[in-house]
């Protein structure tokens, strides 16, 4: 059963309970007491010690202030850059469809870090291993909802069957449009090389405002060309060497 997240940012009240619950459940350490001055976001972004991150977008809408909140998370890509890149096989796909870093395998090579098109996974400096949202794999196995979805007071984070969530996201967008909220868009990048995400979003304005790239790209799509180039170069070098000694 393909599980997924639907984060309906139009219901988010920016309370950060999801961030706190995630850190508490997963015993994630603090990552700095830094006041950023960027609205109420002192978290900064997803990272090795932040698996949920609530974004605060301040803007002017219809002549007055508006404040949009959206809780970001690992996208659990259908084809995941991090998973493909991982040389140890530490990153696996679980039976719930999540992309999971096995902490007892990861050797901290850091390759996944530059292979995530969403800038999610990172290596924790003092620990040395890479961390990201686990999809609450331990809770899933126990039949529990992820911690973030459980605490969300407004059901901005919804967890369940992905197809059902997709239908719900579309319906919600349409309902909002009918109410005059015409700038809500569903983020569900299925027609891209990552083949879709298991975390879909409904946000107001442009997806870009929330760091959701219009066309996330799976880095391995460039492997073939890269290897071809490497092979050509190797051949060229072999020829040069042969020529150097034989001429």
């Amino acid at each position, binding site marked *: 059963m393909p599980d997924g997240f639907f984060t309906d940012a139009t219901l988010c009240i920016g309370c950060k309970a999801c961030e706190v619950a995630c850190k508490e459940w997963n015993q994630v350490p603090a990552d700095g007491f830094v006041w950023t001055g960027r609205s109420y976001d002192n978290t900064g972004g997803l990272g090795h010690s932040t698996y949920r991150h609530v974004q605060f977008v301040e803007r002017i809408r219809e002549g007055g202030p508006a404040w949009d909140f959206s809780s970001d998370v690992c996208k659990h890509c259908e084809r995941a850059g991090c998973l493909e890149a991982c*040389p140890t096989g530490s990153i696996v796909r679980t039976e719930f469809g999540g992309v999971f870093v096995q902490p007892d*395998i990861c*050797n901290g090579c850091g390759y996944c870090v530059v292979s995530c098109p969403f800038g999610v996974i990172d290596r924790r400096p003092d620990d040395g291993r890479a961390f990201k949202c686990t999809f609450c794999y331990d809770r899933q196995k126990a039949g529990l909802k992820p911690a973030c979805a459980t605490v969300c007071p407004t059901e901005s984070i919804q967890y369940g069957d992905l197809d059902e969530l997709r239908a719900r996201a579309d319906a919600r967008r349409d309902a909002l449009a009918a109410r005059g909220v015409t700038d809500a868009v569903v983020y569900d990048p299925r027609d891209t090389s990552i083949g879709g995400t298991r975390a879909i979003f409904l946000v107001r304005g442009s997806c870009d405002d929330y760091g959701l790239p219009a066309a996330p790209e799976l880095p391995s799509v460039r492997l073939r060309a*890269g290897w071809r180039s490497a092979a050509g170069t190797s051949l060229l070098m072999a020829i040069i060497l042969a020529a150097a000694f034989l001429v």
Partner: protein
Amino acid sequence: MTSLKAPVWTWEVPAYFFVGGVAGVAAAIACAATLAGGDRATIGAARAIALFGAAVSPLLLISDLGRPGRFLYMLRVFKLRSAMSVGAWTLIVFSGATTAALVYWIAAPAGPIVAAGLIVTDLVAATTGLVLATYTGVLLGATVLPVWAERHRTLPIDFGVSSLGAAASAVELVAGTTEAMVRVALAAAAIKTVFWLVSLARREPAVNRTISRATLLAGPLALGLRLAGLAWAPAHAAAALAALVGSGLSRFGWIEAGRADAASMRQ
């Protein structure tokens, strides 16, 4: 805007890119020279450099790992879709083949079986060595950072050619200038220079200063010195140094570029 993560790699990784590349090409030089019956000093130097690289590279890699004790987990799986996995296996095979080749080479007078073993291990070391010199470009190209990803085709060439010049220079510095090594170094410097001229002509902005300097060193400067060397031999040593430094610098420059790319995306 999506904020992408910066590479977490410390100096060991670019150092490994360089050392591994030099060692890889050195093994290929050793193989070619052995097959062509080149002079023993060159062969010995190339083998030594290859072996040295084969020994140092894993140390560099291990030292960069977040969990160095788990280096061998690299060999839990072999994944074609992970350039790092392919590279790790390549390095292992390369190390083995280089070591074996050296043993066979020292023992070569022992007979035909050993001679055949030498040829086979040399070929394996040379092949994996050339992969070692180029795969790092593939590895960077198959990531999400645009500065690398956009150059996924040229990075392997750049890294390979740069290793080629550096390896020839290293062998030359150890074993003394030979015609063959000069030819290799000349070719490498010439290719680099062509690339440099093309990018000048296209008015491509410099990626960063480290890379620009590295290119100047390994490209036009090395080429100029090599040409000068044809008239005045000591210039060859200077050219070799320029190629080596340029090659090493470029690896650091490329990692730096990745870091800067990620930083520019935050905010």
